[in-house]
């Protein structure tokens, strides 16, 4: 079982800590975007689209997507792994959380690309 691990658990946990810290910074910027313009107009369609056209903000959004997805799905993987200890459950959890993570990142990236192109 141990032989075909791609990543050691210690490496996964280092990724978990790094993504957590990095996510704080990028999410803070994302929240600030609603506070630097008058609050009522911060969710208007035109303003949001103009944000999506700004390449730096697009990079921030993509970073949030990747960092929070990795951190969050790894977290749920850890919680679920503790609940049962058999090979079938562990393999299922690994497959489901990684797939969900990739699916969410793909879906979010699609949004960013399409909105940027609008």
């Amino acid at each position, binding site marked *: 079982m141990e032989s075909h691990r791609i990543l050691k658990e210690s490496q996964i946990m280092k990724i978990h800590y790094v993504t957590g810290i990095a996510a704080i910074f990028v999410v803070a910027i994302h929240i600030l975007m609603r506070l630097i313009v008058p609050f009522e107009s911060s969710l208007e369609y035109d303003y949001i689209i103009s944000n999506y056209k700004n390449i730096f903000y697009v990079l921030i959004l993509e970073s949030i997507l990747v960092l929070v997805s990795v951190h969050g799905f790894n977290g749920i993987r850890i919680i679920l792994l503790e*609940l049962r200890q058999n090979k079938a459950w562990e393999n299922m959890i690994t497959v489901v959380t990684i797939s969900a993570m990739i699916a969410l990142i793909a879906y979010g990236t699609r949004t960013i690309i399409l909105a940027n192109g609008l």
Partner: protein
Amino acid sequence: MVLNNTDSINEDKIVLKVYRENRGQKSGAHYDRFEVPYKRWTTVLDALLYVKSYIDPSVAIRYSCRMASCGSCGMKINGFPRLACYTKISELETSTIECEPLSNFPIIRDLVTDFSLFFNHHKDIQPYIQSNEGVETDTEKKTFSFYQSPEDVDKYLQFSYCIKCGLCNSACPTVGTDLRFPGPQALAQLYRYFADTRDESKNRLDIVDDRHGIWRCHFAGSCSKVCPKGVDPALGIQLLRSYMLGISKDNKELAKKIEINTDK
């Protein structure tokens, strides 16, 4: 059902609510209540032994030293893992004292639990000094003594105070769901040997670098909260983790070996 002894009118009395379970018999799990006299210094163990002596000798409990040294009498007292010999009735401040077997350990009978998995986890972390000393050849046998300064000893001493009572494993939220998690006791002992300058093993950290190893500790701190000997397993685990993350560098200076001349 309250069972009591009929005399001693002027003594303070407490009700002991004891969990009873015997899987061999048809009766299911239930609580028995016993009225027990107590004084300012009476411990829960004293009360349970009173019950065994005068009221119901079939109550199964495990105990030995009666002085918080052997770790045998661990149980949940009012829902909190404690040593029965180390807990005075007067410090509990309730009129009914509930005694239950330690959680996260299979129950054998009444308050006696099975420690096999606990000891197996402990054995898995290789709880012994691994050293290349004591070289024997055909012609001579050398004997070595290790030199450790008081500072060297302080690095691991408190973790060596562990009496294997199991209270930490009972309190740990991860042990409560994950049977493959070594538990705070084994992890703290791993650190005890890792920090010992006499130990030369290079692969101790790899033993617990696993999905169900040290990484499933989240510093809930309940282990240290319940430890009766001040071992503070949570500290040992976090210090061990800092080595595994690469924050603390593993540059332990091994203890100097001094050859002892055994020729008489």
